[in-house]
């Protein structure tokens, strides 16, 4: 089927350009992630530093080699590969083997990003695709969660708070304060909500992200889990669901990508992601669900884009009788 020229023009974005460049936006995201990055090293030791550096380096080199081989314009300098590397490393526990992070990084950049046209054209978040690959192929490689304040060989395997909560076990050994500051087992970049939120505040200040998407995603997850996750309706623990997993990391840094620009579409996708995340947490096999929730919403973005047509400026929606 041949597309008309007008359709092609309609389908290929961006149509509106801001003064701000991709490079500036990505640099801002990297800056915003620095507090959580420092926190990951503080809580999980040198292994966190190694994983982040490995992921970033592999992502950048993968993108460079791919574009060189394909004789495409080099976009390494736009920092998007750096962001992907950091977020990918943030989504794995400290015990993850370095080789696994390298494989996931190559997959994220080449398969999830470049196969679909590079930045702005990828259908799903590359970092989460990399994590999904590890979960699918080598689940044991990213299931070794460890307690905090341990480094290297001293690391002690531990269940996550969400895992304990889901199984009905006591989680009183983890205070809400510990969950907030990050002193709990989990992926290296997701545990400190305090540091993630500081970075998110910077992004809001810089107007890099729209808080409505983040809010819609978080509120949806909290609402559904509050209703269904307790013993009886409306008895779920909101703070545990908010602070114990990767909800803040996903909502602030991965739900807010630029795949779709229409605000209503973004919020709708955030609600969908929230419903799927909550569904997985409540009734799925996994205790988490953020990555699959966001990836599922990513996959539905084209459909939602088509369903929610933006109002065309200058055209009356309601016809007068």
């Amino acid at each position, binding site marked *: 089927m041949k597309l008309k020229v007008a359709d092609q023009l309609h389908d290929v974005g961006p149509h509106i350009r801001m*003064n*701000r460049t991709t490079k*500036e936006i990505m640099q*801002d995201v990297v*800056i*915003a992630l*620095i*507090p959580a990055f*420092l*926190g990951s090293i*503080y809580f999980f030791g040198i292994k966190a530093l190694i994983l982040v550096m490995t992921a970033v380096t592999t992502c950048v080199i993968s993108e460079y080699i791919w574009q060189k081989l394909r004789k495409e314009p080099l976009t390494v300098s736009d920092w998007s590969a750096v962001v992907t590397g950091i977020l990918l490393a943030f989504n794995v526990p400290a*015990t993850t083997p370095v080789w696994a992070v390298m494989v996931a990084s190559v997959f994220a950049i080449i398969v999830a990003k470049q196969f679909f046209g590079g930045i702005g054209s990828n259908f799903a978040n590359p970092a989460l695709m990399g994590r999904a690959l590890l979960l699918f192929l080598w689940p*044991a490689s990213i*299931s*070794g*969660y460890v*307690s*905090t*304040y*341990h480094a290297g*060989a001293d*690391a*002690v*395997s*531990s*269940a996550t708070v969400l*895992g*304990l909560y889901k*199984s*009905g*076990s*006591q989680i*009183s*050994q*983890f*205070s809400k*304060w*510990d969950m907030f*500051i*990050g*002193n*709990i*087992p989990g992926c290296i970049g997701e545990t*400190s909500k*305090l*540091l993630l939120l*500081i*970075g998110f*505040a*910077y992004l809001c*200040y*810089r107007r890099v992200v729209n808080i409505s998407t983040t809010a819609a995603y978080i509120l949806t997850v909290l609402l559904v889990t509050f209703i269904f996750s307790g013993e009886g309706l409306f008895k779920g623990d909101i703070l545990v669901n908010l602070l114990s997993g990767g909800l803040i990391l996903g909502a602030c840094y991965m739900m807010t990508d630029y795949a779709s620009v229409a605000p209503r579409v973004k919020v709708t996708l955030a609600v969908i992601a929230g419903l799927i995340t909550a569904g997985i947490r409540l009734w799925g096999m996994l205790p988490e669900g953020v990555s699959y929730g966001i990836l599922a919403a990513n996959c539905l973005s084209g459909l939602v884009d088509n369903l929610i047509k933006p109002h065309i400026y200058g055209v009356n929606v309601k016809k007068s009788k």
Partner: protein
Amino acid sequence: MKDNRLKGIIALAVVTVISFGVIYGSKILVKDNTTNGNTTDNNQNQQDLPGAIDVSGAEGIVSARELTDDSGNVTGYSVVSEAKGFAKPVTWEIIFENDAKTIREVKVVSHAETPGYGANMEEESYLNQFKGIKAPIYLKGQAPASDAGSESGASDTTEGFKDGIYRVESEEMDNGYYYMLTLKVENGAITNVVFDGMNELGEYKSYLSSVGKYVMTEDGLTWKEQADALAQYVIEHQSVKGLAVDENGKTDAVAGVSISINNFLELAEKALEMAATGEGAQNAGGDNAPVSADGEFGEIDAISGATFTTNAILELVNNAYEFIKNYAGK
């Protein structure tokens, strides 16, 4: 725009520094908060509740209290008990009925066991098997006869070894693995030997080899099969004396075994020495597990692939039972 970014970065840096100060300060303020196996809060909570029972001097008992109804009648007992798991203490709350024997419910308070192995203790189906059974508890099929066993766990026999279960583990890691050996003696004879290794990630060598993640040779026996063959040798010969090794730690005494058996030999010899004297013996209910005076006891399933965790659970539940039985005078 640039100025706006600079201001943002400065604010971000300042707030980040303050946040780290708060995080570090909270670490200092909260003692023993370096692992998730911390039970201090739980202990404190129990001690603050009505009906708290003094647990000072009771080994392995973190806290305990009486459960009462509105009229003040004792309806049961709650005991928080802990025992050493694979790496860190495993802590459970065991709730007994007011007969101080029937388990009403158990809850996992904390642990640092390996996901997929010892951490499976959190599964509802595993915890549910404790509901309604009577303490002391044993693994299924391993409850001693009513006249067997003693308080030390070892019983005299007419044979060379004393009955009981003997557990030994390597003190240092060797090529990325800790090794452990469990030897069971019944009626004076070795009836079961389990030899295994565990890596830093908590993965058992037997499991890794059985699923093809730890491959010895393409066509030879897997590591687990070789470990089982070595164990079988000990059961058949009741000794390790025939296991001569070369300079590489390898032996020709067992068909198909090509692994270095130094770790196995070291642990087996240690376990055999213990079995000869009865030192360090456990009965099937864990360390110093009580023998049911009235012949009533409960049986549970082991956690697959998690011997240490299973033993810890047996120990902490039976310790809780002993404590509350003595307290209630029943």
